[in-house]
């Protein structure tokens, strides 16, 4: 495990064309890392995420992606992700191939990936049209009962990026609160990059806590506020007002680009991004 700046993490470990998962189920979404990928202009990424959320709306609208694996692509409680919709409906800024699943299916695919099994199995996708539009959703017969079960190929990202509350100096990473499928997405990856709110001398002892041990973590960057406008439990709340405001910011291509130019491309790093939002408030 190496401790580095976020810029170095992305420079060194994220390549054009990589399959990249920025996970975090509403909570602990690695926004700072997404913004750094945009600043460094990575292209043709295959993005993987259960809920694309605003962070992938931004990556897609800034032309970083050619493919998206996902299971629910909206702005939670608000409505559409307009940049995702524009990419699917109109091919702007470029065509976006989609590999669409259900949450249960993606969870099974991450679990299989973490276990280095070839596929995930579930009693799922029953009576839905998804398998008719996604040839990667298949079925397998149980060798014991004969039941037909759904099978999805394992997800093994080239790079998974997570945001977490704390890491210690050895690189053990601790997550608390709503943790979605982060542990599985992290363990499924060839490389696991983590941004954290805090670097501590020693993680508080807690049995059964969600800890990603140092030897499965490729690199850690200290990045306070790195999940904003999502949240880091115990540090700051989800900015629901921003999620609502994003509907207007992202609705038109021009207003989206203006906002991204000003706040993301116009900022040197995440601290600068947060400063620019404070200045605009």
């Amino acid at each position, binding site marked *: 495990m190496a401790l580095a700046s976020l810029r170095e993490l992305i420079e060194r470990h994220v390549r054009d064309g990589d399959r990249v998962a920025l996970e975090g189920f509403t909570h602990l979404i690695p926004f700072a890392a997404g913004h750094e990928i945009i600043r460094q202009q990575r292209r043709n990424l295959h993005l993987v995420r259960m809920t694309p959320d605003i962070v992938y709306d931004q990556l897609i609208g800034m032309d970083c992606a050619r493919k998206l694996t996902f299971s629910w692509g909206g702005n939670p409680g608000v409505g559409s992700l307009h940049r995702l919709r524009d990419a699917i409906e109109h091919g702007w800024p470029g065509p976006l191939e989609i590999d669409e699943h259900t949450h249960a299916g993606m969870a099974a695919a991450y679990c299989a990936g973490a276990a280095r099994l070839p596929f995930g199995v579930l009693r799922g996708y029953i*009576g839905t049209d998804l398998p008719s*539009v996604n040839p990667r959703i298949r079925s397998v017969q149980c060798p014991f009962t004969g039941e037909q079960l759904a099978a999805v190929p394992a997800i093994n990202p080239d790079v998974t990026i997570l945001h977490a509350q704390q890491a210690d100096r050895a690189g053990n990473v601790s997550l608390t609160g709503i943790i979605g499928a982060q542990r599985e997405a992290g363990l499924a990856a060839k490389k696991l990059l983590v941004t954290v709110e805090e670097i501590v001398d020693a993680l508080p002892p807690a049995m059964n806590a969600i800890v990603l041990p140092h030897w499965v973590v490729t690199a850690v960057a200290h990045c*306070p506020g790195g999940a904003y406008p999502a949240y880091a439990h115990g540090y700051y709340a989800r*900015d629901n007002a921003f999620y609502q405001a994003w509907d207007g910011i992202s609705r038109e291509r021009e207003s989206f680009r203006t906002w991204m130019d000003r706040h993301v491309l116009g900022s040197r790093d995440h601290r600068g991004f947060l400063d620019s939002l404070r200045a605009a408030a």
Partner: protein
Amino acid sequence: MSGWTRDEMMTVAAARLLWDRCVCFVGIGLPSAACNLARLTHAPEIVLIYESGTIGTRPDVLPLSIGDGELADTAACVVPLPEIFSYYLQAGRVDVGFLGAAQIDRYGNLNSTVIGPYAHPKTRLPGAGGAPEIAAHALQTFVMLKATPRSCVAKLDFRTSVGYLDGGGSRGRTTARGGGPRAVITDFGILTPDEETRELRLTAVFPGASVIEAQAAVGWPLRLAADIEPLPEPTAGELQALRELHTRTNAAHSRAVHLPA
């Protein structure tokens, strides 16, 4: 308390279908309001589960997303997402799945994926999320949606989540373990499936709503139950609990968050 809106009546009617101590998997939006109203009125020990892995949550305000911190803070426990779908939902440990959708057909099948052809959608909707497995494995489901001929359609543009498939015994021939939709709560009343054909019929209407209005709002020839139950209007207690919940929620969602330093 005088006066109430159809939206309020819809939420109240949906909340009344839930019972105390039932285990309910909650979709975001209209279902979330109904489930929490039930908890704040007649079902204080209802176990609410959100797909973010929060079990037995008791939020003071409605979450904007299914993963707001409020849900974790007030939960009995928080488990990883793969567990909630495999060990709880798929394992048959959920009594009620509460869903919304963009489109429904006469057999209670739901579309939340696309309007228009999948490859070239007219409107791309958010997609499946947890709904297909909730629809398959919750022991029963309730569906909430506002009825128009565009939302209640003769043929779905895309079948995201299974109801009674083609009606009759067709759902029973799948590997879905749950019982399927037991009620559809619209903004004029409630539809429930016929025992034999599984086609949705009008079985209850809100005060002030008519059968003619219901039939006009549905894009297939809506069948009527032999006895259509007139539903009582919201009580003062229900309205007060719901309005206070919305007031707290609006204040919380518009509150400025201190940006992390």
